[in-house]
């Protein structure tokens, strides 16, 4: 197919063309990470496809298909459902507050028939879509500094507050950070950014003192002084560091990590999956996986910056920001650089919800790539 063919009007709407426009290298990297994750789950089970490795692979397969399908969905469709997704997620979040299922002392789930939804995960996509759509219709000047900025602030603040009171501080921070990243990308005034950073530095200690739950505060204390309580709260961090460090350069070998095999490593298949990997495959394994993550983030950002529409740019970069935050926060936590927060390593860790969020997000990213030349119409008025 020649370039001239692709420039023909309507040519890019053909499904086969769309399919070929998907970034398959990107997809391969996703598969690699999920595959490595499944491999480690097999090792940690120990040496068994159940209970983690097989469901992880099956789930990834299903979500991969969903991602491909979503990649073919016209960016204008994404644009038109943006507020609806956001609205539904917001309603569900309120619903969780009202009828939520109490799990682990926090209301995070909503049972609808056989499936259990975590609205905060939908909201991660919802916020990205809604912000992208809003900024799409906002002039650069307004995006820089104007009263209009109260709208995205509210769009971020409302769900973040609802998630924070669940309490799921990790997700709330993720939503706020993603939203703020998008505001910055959309052209937020540098002065405002600096002011925000200053305000954050002032507010953080106060928030730590007055807003955090005890268990959250303890996690921070534990992070700062893990050696004080090696068998209690500090246990997770210490054991994770031992798993990583004892892996050395080449690791202990597949299925031979004592920290994970003998269960010294807590949550070895979910939040601390990276430590399991680190123990058995060492620095080489860790570095390779981090490289894959870096590559995915880089590719996604490239897709964002090549989009012709502002909606596409912001949507793709928003998803990338979420993904990058996942990776950095989990990595820092596992390596003892951050307190223990319930943030998994996306695609590597076991767990359906986060994988679903990430794969839907990447569906949007791929859609942005497939439709990078399409112009997205503005709706009616600035807001819509």
């Amino acid at each position, binding site marked *: 197919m020649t370039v001239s063919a692709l420039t023909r*009007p309507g040519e890019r709407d053909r499904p086969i063309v769309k399919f070929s426009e998907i970034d398959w290298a990107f997809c391969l990297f996703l598969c690699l990470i999920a595959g490595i994750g499944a491999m480690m789950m097999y090792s940690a089970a120990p040496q068994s496809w159940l209970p983690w490795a097989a469901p992880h692979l099956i789930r990834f397969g299903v979500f991969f298909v969903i991602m491909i399908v979503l990649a073919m969905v016209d960016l204008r469709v994404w644009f038109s459902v943006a507020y609806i997704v956001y609205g539904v997620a917001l309603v569900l979040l309120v619903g969780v507050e009202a009828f939520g299922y109490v799990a682990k002392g926090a209301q995070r789930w909503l049972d609808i028939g056989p499936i259990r939804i975590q609205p905060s995960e939908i909201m991660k996509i919802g916020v990205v879509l809604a912000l992208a759509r809003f900024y799409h*219709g906002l*002039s*650069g*000047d307004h*995006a820089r500094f104007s009263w209009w900025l109260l709208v995205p602030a509210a769009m971020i603040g409302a769900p973040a507050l609802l998630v924070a009171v669940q309490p799921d501080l990790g997700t709330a921070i993720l939503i706020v950070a993603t939203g703020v*990243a998008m505001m*910055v*990308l*959309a*052209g937020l005034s540098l002065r405002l950014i600096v002011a925000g950073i200053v305000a954050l530095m002032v507010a953080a200690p106060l928030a730590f003192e007055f807003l955090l739950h005890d268990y959250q505060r303890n996690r921070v204390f534990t992070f700062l002084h893990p050696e004080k309580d090696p068998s209690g709260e500090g246990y997770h961090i210490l*054991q994770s*560091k*031992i*798993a*990583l*460090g*004892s*892996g*050395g*350069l080449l690791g202990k070998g597949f299925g031979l990590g*004592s*920290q994970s095999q*003998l*269960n*010294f490593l807590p949550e070895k298949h979910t939040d601390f999956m990276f430590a399991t990997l*680190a*123990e058995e495959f*060492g*620095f080489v394994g*860790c*570095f390779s996986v*981090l490289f894959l*993550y*870096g590559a995915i*983030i*880089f590719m996604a*950002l490239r897709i*964002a*910056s090549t989009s012709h529409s*502002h909606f596409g*740019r*912001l949507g793709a*970069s928003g998803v990338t*920001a979420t993904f*990058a935050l996942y*990776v*950095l926060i989990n*990595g*820092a936590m596992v*390596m*003892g*650089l951050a307190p223990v927060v319930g943030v998994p390593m996306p695609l590597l860790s076991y767990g359906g919800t986060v994988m679903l969020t990430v794969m839907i997000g990447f569906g949007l990213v791929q859609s942005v790539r497939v439709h990078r030349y*399409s*112009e*997205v*119409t*503005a709706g009616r008025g600035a807001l819509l």
Partner: protein
Amino acid sequence: MSEPSIFFSEVNERQGVFTRRAFLMGGLTGLGLVALGGQLVHLQLVEANRYAKLAESNKFNFRLVPPPRGLILDRNGVTLASNRPNFRLLVARDGGMDVETTVAELSNLVPIDDKRRIRLVKDIKRAPKRSPVSVMEDMTWEEFSRVNVRAPELPGVTADMGEVRVYPHGGAFAHVIGYVAKVNDKDVKAAGANPDPLLYNPGFRIGRQGIEKAFDLQLRGKPGAQKQEVDAKGRVVRQDPRGDIAPTPGKEIRLTIDVDVQERALEVFGEQSGAAVVMDCRTGDLLCLLSAPSFDANRFVRGLTVPEYKALNEYERRPLLDKALSGTYPPGSTFKTMVALAALESGMITPQDRYVCGGAWWFGGRYFHCWKKDGHGAQNMHDAIKNSCDIYFYQVALKIGPDRIASVAGPFGIGQTFDIGITGQMAGTLPSTDWVKKHRPSDPKWYPGESPSYGIGQGLLNVNPLQLCVMTARLANGRKALNPRLVKSIGGVEQPRGSEAPDLPFSPEHIAIVREGMAAVANDVSGGAYRQSQLGLGPIKMAGKTGTAQVRSYDKVASRKSSSVGWKLKDHNWFVAFAPYDNPRYALSLLVEHGGGSGATEAAPRAREIMRTVLLKDPELRSLIEQPMPMPDVDPGADTEGAAPDLPDAAPPPPPGAPT
């Protein structure tokens, strides 16, 4: 593209800002990833060794392997204390285990009554997590295998084979060897800041008395370790035999005691209470150190019940007291040997000097009686010892005074304690003018009236049976101030011999005169214990001296006979002896506590039996007694297979002339 796209003039500007900032965001993310990479380098490359060690220490646990306790053997290698296998049932509290259910389950497998069950549940709950509590000791093989089969489904339950101390000779060695018992808080405290981890091992027993206590550290050995791979819950996943450290067994202790002599000694006491000590009067080795009645030390290993202990403790013949070392008694007439020697040494009395015995002697406003109412007539020293004439020794003692007696008796061991390795010796009292000054401050003067009693081994004088044996051995040796030795070797290292001692500062001729007197006691038909001292061992004869020590005043009683009074008021009966009398090898002292007879009737026959055993165990002496047996010619090649199948495991007695 049917709908017109919106097209703002600043679209390109928005795109420019986005691209710049996306670049920035990518850079920040990259920076974050580099930071993570840096931490990876730090953890996995720089500090890898440290974390590898931590992972190892997570993964491996060392289980203490208790060392076998050192054996205690007699002089010929017969086992006096050893260890036998003990099938134990242990329960260690584990996370999430239900103690009640587990113990209830176990009571279906092994007999545990309700009372014990309640006690166990309490004990297990109180014990630190994962430290095992002994539920049952000495299970039968059936019980052991039954528990072992079920153990995998009962978390925290293990059945293992430990070792338990066993004393095959029961009571004969209870006082010398002592026993081992459970460790208590005091033992742990006494172990100091860094107690031996063995103390916390559930099967471990600590030495409580005698040799077991005195040489506990040597007998204990050093624990080994078993390397085990454990999971996060502490459950054993794998054993790693290459990582095992073998325990160092406790040292073997060989005593100088001869098991046959010791057992014979216990036997001859029967129901009576007392002590017997036998010493080699050339080397100082103690062949017998016995206190009767005794008790079964094996009961103490298991742990005595309160009524059991009470019964032992309250019995008037005090089986728990080691009378040979810790009991002090007036030596009675056995002490006349010392008085006689002191008299000779003083030069104030010659052997020929005579005192007339009329049955009583008036001194200080009262009569001093002789044991023989009718009196002995005129007595020289030889006769006075042979007849044990009290009147003679009253007057001699009065003449030479207490200090001369003490200055002779002291070097002979009276009033002394000896380093025989075990504790518990009571020095008794060797009175002198100095002694009363120091120990009787309310009445520091020595009264002349005290001397006559001193002369017959009464009054303030108090000795223990070991001292009397040492005295006899030194008399018999005649030259060396022999020291008793109880421990022959520790872990194969020979201990200093008792013959490595200074010479006695007394004239051998004088000592020989005393010895002659003692020989006459046993061998002169008119001697005090002639009938009771006949060994019946051909040419080998014994020399001895009887003693009857009163424990009550005879002043106001019609009869001196003990038959009419309670046990606690009866006289003590002594006999000290050595044999052969012409070439002394063994010395003996024997006490029958409150025997109620005389030294000749109660003590001498028992002493004779023990002495016979001792002499017959000496191959050199035995060859003197036994006529050489005509041996049939034996074909040396034939039947060597079963040459001596029934011989006991004990080492053969040392060849004649070999150092012992």
